[in-house]
């Protein structure tokens, strides 16, 4: 059940947030940091952001667009969307299972 996001090791978490942010539309680095802070409550540090971005680019999961001055926007590729879909589906299954077991455990004295 290893997805192309899981193979990113310690960058899998930031990569999931980046792909989820780009699923809404193209963004540049600093806009990604702000958006991720809003929906995940985590402020990504610039070094970690670019560590994950470079790996996502190498994996073909995102691609650069025409730069806007010194800012470089990125967008999701079809492979990136598929990888995110697969990764989140697995995460949802795990979350559902965990919650079901937790509520069953809490119901049993």
């Amino acid at each position: 059940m290893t997805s192309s996001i899981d193979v990113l090791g310690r960058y899998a978490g930031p990569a999931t947030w980046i792909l989820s942010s780009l699923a809404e539309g193209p963004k540049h680095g600093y806009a990604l940091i702000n958006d991720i802070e809003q929906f995940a409550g985590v402020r990504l540090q610039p070094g970690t952001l670019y560590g994950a971005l470079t790996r996502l680019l190498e994996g073909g999961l995102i691609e650069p667009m025409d730069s806007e001055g010194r800012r470089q926007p990125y967008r999701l590729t079809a492979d990136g969307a598929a990888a995110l879909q697969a990764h989140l589906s697995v995460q949802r299954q795990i979350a559902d299972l965990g919650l079901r077991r937790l509520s069953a455990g809490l119901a049993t004295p």
Partner: protein
Amino acid sequence: MSADLPTIYSKAFERWGWKCVPVIVACWIVLWPAGVVWLAVSLVALYRARDRSEQAQAERRIARMLSWYPPHWRARYGEEFSEVLRETIRSGQGGRRLTLNVARESNAAWWQSATGRRGLRAVWCWSLCWLPLVTQGLVPLIIKLSGGTARSWFLALYLPAGLQWPVIAFMLIAGLVMLAVAVRGTPALRQAG
């Protein structure tokens, strides 16, 4: 001049092989007082000439952090990454955590390719080889041979008499190995660019 020293050492190694290593070490021993004076004078001049405005300080910090990344990485992502750093500092999030994060991630960027790994090893060995070779190897060796009693911060001289020579020898060998790794890895350092 000091920035070109690794190039000089690398070329010397290519031409004369291992024979150049004792010559390099001898040059260090003879020239280090002049080097220290030159470094002090340069640092004072640099400090006096610098712009102390907040913006200039931020730009210097960004340039410094960017310089920790491999040259090819800087060429590809340098401009946009600088902009993100600039906006992060401007938003008041540019504390020590940012420096530590960039230090960790720049190290990871070097580690991503085999050439980068060799280059990074060379950087570490250039930075640290003098510790075992000179301060923990050659200096205690000279103190022992001259019959001195000062122990200062020389590890070997705090050990029992029977262990002092083996530790000095180990430090000398470790320092020479690190110097060799540094000299051999310097072309990879340039290749990483």
